């Protein structure tokens, strides 16, 4: 019993964490929180099922194409919904533009793909549905790989350092001659790929379902809020904790009550610690 809860909890938690990382990557590059983060996860699952199940591609090319597709969505998000409103960041128009774009992605998928959950391909064929089945540990592996990959990117490569510089101080970075716009586009593509990976790795668990976008958007945001904006380690801890809490609540209290409990805990924690549990205080305003 405990094994089943932990397996499912870590699996969905890792998916949430990856969506949290998606939020963070976009935020670092642009100071924008985007409603499309969850939709990228949904798209990862749907594109995976589309390329592998419907179009019959082998797993690896299907995987690469799904991630590329999500990266493209990330890129389009930057061009359509983020760049035009960056000038008026303090008016928070990005909340509206990304919400609109996210709704467009979601309804488009509902109409053109399906409103019913569709099967997601079995990737490796390891495990027989028990707690050690691949569908439970694939998201965890994907999450770990992403965190390590991002660390290597940020610490070891020039591009990664440029990302960090932008995240630290946008104006200064531009003054140093960094190609801020290109880096931002690259960040959004990267965020798209990470979000897509979340949906792809969690696909066997969550299926290829249009409504996953809204769910992942909310539950992927919770670890960001808890872990502090821009803090990937916080997002991973927050995501895993949320996943396990949610599954335990489902088990102990049942569907409806559990859903309410998660929201209530989230709002209370947020009000008590608006910067998140590992976050830094807000910047100067005057």
């Amino acid at each position, binding site marked *: 019993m405990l094994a089943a809860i932990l397996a499912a909890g870590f699996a969905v938690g890792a998916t949430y964490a990856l969506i949290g990382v998606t939020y963070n990557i976009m935020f670092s590059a642009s100071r924008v929180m985007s409603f499309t983060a969850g939709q990228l996860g949904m798209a990862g699952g749907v594109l995976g099922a589309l390329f592998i199940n419907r179009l019959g591609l082998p797993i690896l090319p299907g995987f690469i194409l799904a991630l590329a597709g999500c990266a493209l969505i990330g890129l389009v998000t930057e061009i359509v919904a983020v760049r035009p409103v960056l000038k008026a960041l303090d008016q928070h128009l990005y909340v509206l533009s990304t919400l609109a774009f996210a709704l467009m992605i979601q309804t488009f998928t509902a109409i053109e793909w399906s409103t019913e959950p569709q099967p997601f391909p079995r990737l490796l064929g390891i495990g027989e549905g028990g707690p050690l089945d691949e569908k439970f540990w694939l998201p965890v592996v994907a999450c770990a790989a992403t965190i390590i990959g991002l660390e290597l990117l940020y610490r070891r490569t020039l591009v990664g350092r440029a990302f960090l510089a932008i995240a630290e101080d946008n104006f200064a970075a531009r003054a140093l001659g960094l190609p801020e716009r290109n880096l931002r586009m690259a960040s959004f593509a990267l965020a798209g790929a990470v979000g897509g990976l979340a949906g792809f790795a969690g696909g066997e668990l969550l299926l290829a379902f249009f409504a996953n976008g809204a769910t992942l958007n909310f539950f992927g945001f919770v670890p960001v809020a808890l872990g502090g904006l821009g803090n990937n380690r916080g997002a991973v801890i927050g995501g895993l904790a949320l996943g396990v809490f949610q599954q335990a609540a489902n*088990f102990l209290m049942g569907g409806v009550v559990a859903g309410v409990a998660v929201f209530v805990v989230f709002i209370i924690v947020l009000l008590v610690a608006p910067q998140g549990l590992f976050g830094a205080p807000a910047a100067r305003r005057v």
Partner: protein
Amino acid sequence: MSLTRRALVRASAATLALPAIIRSARAAAEPIRVGWLATFTGPLSSPTIGFDRGVKWAVEQVNGSGGVNGRMIEVISRDTQGDPTKAVNATQDVISRQKVHAIFGPVNSGELLATTPIMARARMPSLVAGVVNSLIDPVKYPNAFRVTPSNAQWDDAVRNYCQNIMKVKKVAITADATGYGTSAHDDSVASFKKAGLEVVYDAVIDPAQPDVTPDMLRAKNAGAEVMVSWTVSAGMAARMMNARAALNWDVPIAGHPALGTGEIGKLVDKPEYWEKVYQVGYRSCSYGPDGKLPKPNQDFVDSVKGKFPLADTSLWWIASGVDAIRLISEAVAKTGSSDSDKIIGYWNTLQMWPGLYGHYSFTPQEHNGFLGSDVVMSKANTQRDGAFDLAPGYV
């Protein structure tokens, strides 16, 4: 001739009746307008696909053979997307603006609960394709006739199968956390207990929950001999079957007709995980030992084969759509009028009316017309042309 008072009354009555005569003369050529409100798009749209094929086919049949007393049937369809607010608008639209003579739909309980009082206010003859028990009330809604089983009848079918054919005592009851699921869960738990069965586990499960192993495990530990499932979510049903297999548990699953939807076949990890699943079905849409449907339905299937697909939906939805149009056209044909009172009055006289879907009987006091014994259990993974094999144990 002296002008008596009686003659005066008679004369004025005739004058008053004149417009009515003109109206009915005009009505003879006027089409019979049927409001068809359904969920053509959106997450709850799969039944409508079936219903709509039946409606269209039946209308073609009637109109192709010259209509009803020379009057064509005109279907005015509105997509409500399963949204009660759109359903209310659409209902008022077909009643007040399109001036329909009868309404079929909407097809989701949340919408029906809202539109039923509105149709009653307009005394609009309406055929209800929804299972919620409270939708039918001949006193409050004398215009509404149920042409599907009620929830209680579904429940009866499942419970009878558990109790009398599978002969089990301990059941687990699950439902999804939607409007339909929560109410079905409560009704079902109550009726199983009342019948003397032991409900060892019951749960309302979020249909988006990615893993239902804990629920299945608890049901197993509680000693359940059958899992009763009330969910329309193919995802949740398939997850239950996958979890059952992962637990090496060979408990039968019985419940909602959606357990047999083709989506589940795609979502179970292995085809055999769909074995030992029994869903609510109908005699009219079940294959007998000879592999044939009952005669009228076999004839219907043979005649429409190739004209529209049957395999991607359930035959009973198509059959229900056909029956709805036939019930309306027959009422107009038999009474010679499309007035509300005439149609309602005619439906109230039906006794064991043989539809493609089932037998309907209505009286002014009883509008739950579907014959209970037409509801049976089917083997969920045996769908061919939208119909199913009977579950084991039926004669």
